């Protein structure tokens, strides 16, 4: 049973079709990586999933319900959490308050759950710091904590490891693996080592369309994928 699916999802900006007729299925409990060269339409695609922009055509279904017409905040309330590619925390609020806003929205107990969420990303001792004073890597981790604190059914992470140190990346991979199967994860990621370590399946986007999809080893070995993406990176 798919938790999330799209049919014919398309987004055009004037003459440029950023996402073109994408059919996509994400089963409950899976950790899926979404990869592709820069400009392949990954961020636009997830933007359509969580309602940050309206599609030109096509539908999005979540848990059997057509959510194509729902506003972003309504989709979030159904259990989709989104962490931003470009760090978007509440810079002038404390790390604690950033996470508390995520906890309170679903009626959770901020006093108990905020330290837990911060603990999971290793920021518990920074709870009192202003989010804007945290290092870039720590702001990324705070984003992830805000995603976790929503206890989503589907967690969409847009390039979460950008700017993280190697040790933090290791901890992040362990954290994401521990989320399944309760939480389904859709991960946009450029770091192939992260993808190979955590993803159960990979979808490759190129020029807004699905180029390949399958198990990590299969996708990595796919000549078309290598030509479009992996080859380019390793060269």
């Amino acid at each position, binding site marked *: 049973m798919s938790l999330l699916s799209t049919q014919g999802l398309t987004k055009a900006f004037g003459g440029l079709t950023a996402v073109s007729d994408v059919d996509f299925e994400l089963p409950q409990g899976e950790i899926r990586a979404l990869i592709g060269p820069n400009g392949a339409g990954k961020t636009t695609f997830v933007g359509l999933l969580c309602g940050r922009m309206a599609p030109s055509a096509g539908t999005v279904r979540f848990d059997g319900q057509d959510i194509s017409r729902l506003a*972003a905040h309504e989709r979030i309330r159904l259990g989709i959490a989104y962490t931003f590619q470009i760090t978007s925390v*509440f*810079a002038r609020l404390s790390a604690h*308050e950033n996470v508390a*806003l995520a906890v*309170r929205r679903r009626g959770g107990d901020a006093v108990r759950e905020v330290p837990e969420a911060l603990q999971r990303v290793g920021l518990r001792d920074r709870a009192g710091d202003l989010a804007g004073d945290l290092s870039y890597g720590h702001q990324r981790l705070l984003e992830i904590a805000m995603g976790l604190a929503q206890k989503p059914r589907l967690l969409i992470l847009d390039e979460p490891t950008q700017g993280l140190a190697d040790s933090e990346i290791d901890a992040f991979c362990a954290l994401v693996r521990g989320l399944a199967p309760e939480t389904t994860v859709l991960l946009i990621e450029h770091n192939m080592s992260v993808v190979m370590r955590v993803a159960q399946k990979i979808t490759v986007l190129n020029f807004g369309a699905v180029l390949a999809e399958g198990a990590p080893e299969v996708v990595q070995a796919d000549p078309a994928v290598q030509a479009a993406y992996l080859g380019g990176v390793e060269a």
Partner: protein
Amino acid sequence: MSEAGKVWALHLGLLGLLFALQFVLPAYHHGNLARVMVLASFAVGYNLMFGYTGLLSLGHAMFFAAGMYGMGLAMRHLGWTPGPALIAGVLSGVVLALVVGALALRTVGVGFMIVTLMFAQAVYLVALYFGEWTRGDEGFVIQQAERVMMGLDLSQPGPRYFVAFVLFSACMLLSLRVMQSGFGKVLIAIRENEERARMLGYNVFRHKLGAVALSGGIAAAAGAFYGLLFGYVGATFATTQYSILPLLWVLLGGAGTILGPFVGTLFAFYLIDISSGFTTAHMLVVGVVLVALALFARQGIVGELRARLWRWLP
């Protein structure tokens, strides 16, 4: 003392001081402070929208005037007593705020400023257009005999001060409670990063509309009490000047602080009062002080206090 304890001690302390001052102040300052407290209530309402939610309105005179006319017209033409008339005033402001908010909140930033400015101008022109009832620019007086509420003759300095004090206390404590609530924290989140708040699942539009209604309601309460306490209702209070003043007071005192509106209103009132005692060019003095504050205390008086000394100030 815990931070919550300090917050309550400070704010209740200020209210205690204001209450006590009525017994010791000379008549002139006694009257001034009563007026300042009503105007500061107006600023408290403005601050909820501008300081805490980040919505810069250039049309708050319309809510002040809605309260004033809602109260005044009900007394003048319907023969209502002050109690129900005040309620009519507040409700007028809330309804106007809901209508204006529902339309103006479709815009952001400069667009929002212009739309609120235009709505306020429309309200002002409506007040003039229906001059037969409102007596337009000239306005009308509410007779002393009608200004009696619960046995208090509001034309007398003592009751007037007391009622102004009750109004200001209610508005300030309401704003403090709102900003300590989950709703208030979402307003701050919207001010800080609207897109992030939306992507945490908050209905940004509904929260903003709530802030506009609350802000408009408090401004209207201030307008209604102002008309009743000082016995005059007129279209002057719907002019652009009365939209700019609360912005100025809030900026001076500290946007997004609970005490800022009062401190800013008091400061501006006495700045004009004192400087006009020395020179007829008092607006020049006021201008220079405002420029100095804008250069050296960008966050306003209470805002600077919070940034430098008391980080726990709400």
